[in-house]
């Protein structure tokens, strides 16, 4: 059985800046965990440390029995972890379909997976199907977000890391994306780590949440409890 994602006392520094200052986190399997906090709180650093783009100065990160700190970035996806980077990270020079294909390219059964995956993603996000042969830089912000999520799903992950998927999107599109995450978690048992500035919409779909401030976890608990805690909301979440 997988034991999910577990961070223990992770410290990540950029020179003198301690972007993560002893973060411990146990991500519940099959649930949506929101990671909230102000600009510079360390949310992006948390995800980049998990997938190996930056290496921590101390602590441990394990996922389903694997030591992620000993895993090269290129191997992370093969363990079932997919990442939707901040600012979406679609490769604008490639077409929509090429971006999606990349998601399943590491698999040994990629022919079948690509066919199935494309069908699933196009059904989930019809605008992508109409634009499959267009360069990704012609997509709108919302379409790019769909593409980034669709590409992540092409690898058939068990853990999806999302970095501010609502950034720059209209409320209606944000709500659509949140509903999609909810459905993937409920129907497919996908584990989601959802980094957000937009605390209100993140808490509305998350099962639990942690609040980061200056690299430390300052609060964690069930999403409803955090949303109901007025003091916390005023201090860290701004709504």
């Amino acid at each position, binding site marked *: 059985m997988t034991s999910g994602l577990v961070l223990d006392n992770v410290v990540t520094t950029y020179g003198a800046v301690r972007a993560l200052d002893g973060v411990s986190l146990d991500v519940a399997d099959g649930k949506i965990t929101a990671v909230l906090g102000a600009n510079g709180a360390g949310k992006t650093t948390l995800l980049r440390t998990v*997938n190996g*783009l930056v290496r921590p100065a101390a602590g441990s990160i394990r996922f389903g029995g694997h030591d992620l700190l000993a895993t090269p*970035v*290129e*191997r*992370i*996806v*093969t363990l079932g972890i997919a*990442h939707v*980077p901040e600012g979406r*990270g*679609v*490769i*604008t*020079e*490639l077409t929509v379909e*090429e971006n999606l*294909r*990349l*998601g399943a*390219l*590491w698999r040994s059964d*990629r022919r079948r997976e690509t066919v199935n995956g494309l069908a699933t993603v196009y059904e989930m996000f019809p605008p992508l199907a109409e634009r499959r042969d267009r360069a990704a*830089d012609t997509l709108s912000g919302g379409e790019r977000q769909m593409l980034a999520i669709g*590409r992540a799903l092409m*690898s058939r992950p068990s853990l999806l890391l999302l970095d501010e998927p609502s950034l720059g999107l209209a409320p209606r599109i944000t709500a659509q994306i949140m509903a999609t995450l909810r459905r993937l978690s409920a129907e497919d048992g996908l584990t989601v780590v959802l980094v957000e500035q937009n605390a209100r919409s993140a808490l509305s779909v998350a099962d639990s949440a942690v609040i980061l401030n200056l690299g430390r976890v300052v609060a964690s608990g069930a999403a409803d409890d955090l949303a109901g805690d007025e003091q916390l909301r005023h201090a860290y979440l701004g709504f």
Partner: protein
Amino acid sequence: MTFLNLVISGAANGVVYAAVALALVLIWRSTGILNFAQGGMLMFTTFIAWDLVHLHGANYWVGLVVALLAGLVLGAVVERVLIRPIEGGPPINPVIVTLGLLLLLEAVAGMIWGSGVSSFAPEFSLNDYHVGHQLILFSPDYLFIVLAVLGVMVALYVLFQHTPIGLRMRASAFNPEVARLLGVRVGRLLTLGWGLAAMVGALAGVLIAGTQPGYINPNAFDGLLILGFTAAVVGGLDSPLGALAGGLLVGVIQQLLDNYVSIDLDSFYTFVVLLVVLMLRPSGLFSRTAVRRV
């Protein structure tokens, strides 16, 4: 008819410049490095082919294939050994390293093969075609050159656009970080990219070496590098199609100016073309940014 003839022979020369330009473009767009050593690398692989064919009696085709493979290996080794360690450093570092490699290769070639001139006999005739009594400035050897370069370009196009490895190479070039997150082994593909680029360069070297008796010596290809560089810049530096167009344009203009103005100013024309293009259209004629603006 003279004019048409000049255009034909200029374009035929231009195809070789285009191959060199393509070698530069492939590396520029994947690593943002201008490989000044490319002239030295293709000189070296051409010498290897010449050595096999003229000193050891090998068949021309064996020489050509060995030169291509040597280019592939040389490019890959250069990436692994010289370029990888300076990745992410100041942008001046690759300039110095590739210029240093150029000088090194020229010096080593001089030690091995001497600095005198040598001739590489072409496989096909250099006698121009006739249509009736009309001379066409185009020969069987140039026909081979055009077909070989275009064949390689088509093969590379198919590789990049229609195979999984090509998709990985493009992803690595355009967005290495995202590519790694998607499981692409970016480092390996950069090595392969350098190898392929150097292979295209190696082809250009062997092809052009046969077009003139006494062409080869350790410094003979410096001019070709400058022409290829001009073609690449004219084409926008990041566009393979631009490299082809740039090569043809530079070849034709060079031939026309040689004929109608003076051949003594030959190398000067290259700079004029470069200057004019950069003034009129700083990002080159075919660069992606220019296309976007239109």
